[in-house]
């Protein structure tokens, strides 16, 4: 198809320059002649002006011709100079090389001369080109059909900073960065366990993004791991720029309002979830790590739930559920209550609401829709603009315009309160993208409430429940602890049980090893208390 179009566009002459497939080919082997190799690589990286080639001769005899190739900016120049050029060009002079080493010369260089840490031997152009593009340095040697990939990756990158979307009061301040290796290291630092497996694959025809699948062998169910790998391998896109690409490609029901993978910026969350039997998907170039299978509950979890004492955690989690409910339904409830069932509200409240609506030209529905939309616009405007201006937008929009609208009698003050409560509730949901989903549902609920009042809202909630019940994420029920509820594993749902009572892992991942801890309520704690009592 594309061929036809491009031919039509370019006329009869096929423009080789643009038509040629640049994808590196691993079947194409390296040649003996160093110049030919260089030429071939340049053929691949034609018109890539950021590729640097450095030819040099090694040793005192200056007989061994060598070449370095790398991309400017992706490599750590110091590393190239100190660990490669210096050791090959200068150090070798102090200890003259024996001549005619033959094939051993290559090994000599690799094993005896180069002081760089990470070296890999390759024999085809595919890997060579990919290595160059990934920020490695390639060392060609004349008369050898092999080359060395020396890891010299080092580019300007953001350091480990506090995650902005998942801030906590109590808990580690470290968040993931855009660098794959750093992210893996952040997780590895938390799980010093040989069972933590990291499987790296490359995704994206053009981006060739490193994607790592992490899981703990012995906990994670092999079914889920296989399923994740299987789905990842089916992805064939031109690019993966963010984990969102992967998330949307591998989730089961892409029409759902609810993300079926959990995403996080925090290594501690990833570590905790890995220990619950989840599979983590780390994507290069983004600080967001995906966790599968996702559950409805995970949308309401914050790492703090586990760091704080359990009453606090439970209360906050309950609040979040309430907030999510209001984020979906509050304007709808207002409409249902005032326009359909004013008998439910206390008389004084009814009269005062009616009084505030006196003289407002629009019906409550129109008012609600207009207000919710304008609030969404304000929020979006505030997010896009830099900090101080964003705040100004909030103040101008929220206070000035709102106040003016109320004064002018276009909007009733109670509606301002309703919409504000609705918006604030949505911000209490830890997961931003989910919060937006809930706010989208607001419109549907407003519509349902307008047609059939509280019955409409109930119908909407029922449909939502049906959808959630039938939703599955990688074989796990999305509504997990709520369905097939077992009390022993159910200490972590709407409330979070005391830590010592959470002896087993949640069952939705079907972990191979259910035990999280030994039951310490009966032995350890009491023993400690007894010992203390004895001492006194």
């Amino acid at each position, binding site marked *: 198809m594309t061929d036809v179009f491009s031919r039509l566009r370019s006329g009869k002459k096929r423009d080789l320059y643009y038509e040629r497939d640049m994808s590196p080919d691993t079947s194409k082997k390296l040649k003996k002649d160093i110049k030919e190799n260089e030429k071939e690589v340049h053929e691949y990286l034609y018109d890539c002006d950021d590729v640097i080639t450095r030819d040099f001769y090694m040793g005192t005899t200056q007989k061994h011709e060598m070449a370095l190739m790398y991309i400017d900016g992706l490599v750590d120049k110091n590393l190239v100079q100190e660990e490669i050029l210096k050791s090959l060009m200068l150090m070798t002079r102090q200890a003259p090389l024996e001549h005619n080493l033959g094939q051993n010369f290559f090994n000599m260089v690799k094993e005896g001369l180069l002081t760089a840490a990470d070296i890999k031997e390759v024999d085809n152009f595919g890997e060579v080109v990919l290595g160059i593009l990934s920020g490695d340095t390639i060392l060609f040697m004349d008369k050898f059909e092999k080359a060395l990939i020396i890891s010299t990756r080092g580019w300007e990158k953001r350091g480990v900073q506090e995650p902005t979307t998942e801030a906590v009061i109590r808990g580690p301040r470290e968040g993931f960065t855009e660098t794959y290796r750093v992210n893996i290291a952040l997780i590895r630092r938390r799980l010093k366990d040989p069972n933590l497996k990291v499987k790296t694959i490359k995704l994206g025809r053009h981006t060739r993004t490193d994607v790592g699948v992490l899981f703990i062998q012995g906990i994670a169910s092999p079914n889920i791991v296989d399923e994740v790998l299987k789905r990842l391998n089916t992805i064939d896109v031109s690019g993966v720029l963010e984990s969102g690409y992967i998330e949307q490609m591998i989730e089961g029901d892409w029409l759902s309002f609810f993300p079926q993978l959990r995403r996080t910026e925090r290594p501690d969350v990833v570590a905790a979830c890995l220990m619950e039997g989840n599979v983590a998907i780390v994507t290069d170039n983004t600080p967001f790590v995906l966790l599968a299978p996702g559950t409805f509950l995970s949308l309401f979890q914050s790492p703090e739930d586990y760091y704080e004492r359990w009453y606090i955690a439970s209360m906050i989690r309950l609040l979040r559920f309430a907030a999510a409910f209001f984020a979906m339904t509050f304007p709808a409830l207002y409409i*249902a*209550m005032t326009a*359909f*069932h004013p*008998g*439910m*509200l*206390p*008389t004084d409240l009814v009269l005062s609401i009616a009084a505030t609506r006196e003289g407002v030209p629009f019906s409550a529905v129109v008012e609600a829709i207009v207000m919710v939309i304008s609030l969404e616009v304000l929020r979006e405007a505030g997010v896009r603009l830099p900090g101080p201006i964003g705040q100004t937008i909030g103040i101008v929009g929220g206070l000035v315009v709102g106040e003016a609208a109320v004064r002018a009698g276009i909007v009733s003050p109670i509606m301002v309160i309703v919409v504000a409560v609705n918006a604030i509730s949505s911000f209490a949901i830890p997961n931003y993208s989910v919060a937006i989903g809930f706010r989208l549902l607001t419109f549907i609920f407003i519509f349902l409430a307008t047609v*059939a*009042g*509280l*019955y409409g*809202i*109930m*119908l909407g909630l*029922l*449909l939502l*429940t*049906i959808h959630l*019940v*039938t939703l599955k994420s990688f074989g796990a*029920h999305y*509504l997990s602890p*709520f*369905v*097939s*509820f077992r009390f022993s594993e159910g200490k972590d749902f709407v409330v979070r049980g005391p830590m010592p009572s959470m002896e087993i892992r949640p069952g939705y991942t079907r972990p191979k090893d259910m035990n999280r801890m030994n039951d310490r309520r009966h032995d350890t704690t009491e023993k400690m208390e007894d010992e203390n009592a004895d001492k006194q």
Partner: protein
Amino acid sequence: MLTNNDKITIPQTVALLITTILATGILALPRNVANAAGSDGWLLVLLAGVISYFSSLIVGALVKRFPGDTFIEYSQKVLGKFPGYILGFILILYFIFVSAMSVRVFSEVMNAFMLINTPRGFIIITMLLSSVYLIRHGIEPIARIGEILLPILIIPIFAMYLTALPRADFSELLPFFDTPVKDLAISTIHTAYNFLGFEILLMIGPYMRSPERVMWTLLFSIGFITLTYLFIVVIVFASIGVEDSRILLWPAMSIIRTIMAPGGVFERLDALALALWTIASFTTINGMYYSGTLAAAHLMGAREFKFFVTIFFPWVYLFSIIPGNPLDTMRWTQISGMAGIVIAIIIPAIILVISIVAKKGGKTS
């Protein structure tokens, strides 16, 4: 011959049974028992619960006797191909009719208390569509949704009626045992209509993960239902009196209108209560409708039941608009109740007896 391999656990079966049995009929229950036995009405509920439990054991015995078979299969095995076929057809008709009646009663309560001007068709169709959306996903999601909705339904109901306690006058339950025994016996049968719904086990039995515990499942479900009914009847009697219960169409709903939420947040809780009855009704329709489509699929030997879900939709709707007014509906629900007794107790009893005599059926327990 299972259409799919979904299995439901014991708690799910209990939830499914309870939510199926618990329907909008409970709103009228206090009136029925007050008319039948006056202040002894609560006794009627208790008796009907006990009788229903023992009758449901027949269905339970069939489930145990024919593991892996639905009513459609074992009726044909026991009675022969053709009579079994006829019975299966009656069963389908019954399930469809009962789901139509429950959606109809729901729409009437809705029209009376909440959406006075909204056309009945709108309420019925939206309700049925939601139900269709769910049951197309099969037995497991239905059971799971029952599991989720059960606490959401039961806890607020109890909480709501408990707030009526301060106004209650329990001497309304006196005089005790003032009704002739004969009247009690007859009315008990009528009251037992409210316990119908366990007959879905005729179809759903083979989908239970551990059918050997079906007796416990039934005991728990029907026991729970009996307690709930008892609770509501007692509270209704105690708060508005037996005499008013006789007159009001839906006394259990009317007393909610007199309840003020603690703290005065809501002037009255009726709309909230109706939202809850939406759940109760929805789950009942699900159970019945699904059993009907499943029976049809088994009868036709179809591999996929979803087709029948769509086919039955207009029929359920048509059945539901047969009665002209609430009084008519009451008559039709009486008829469906009588049919229910036949379907749920008498026919299974006959099949069970024949199968024992003729030594048909798999393992005997």
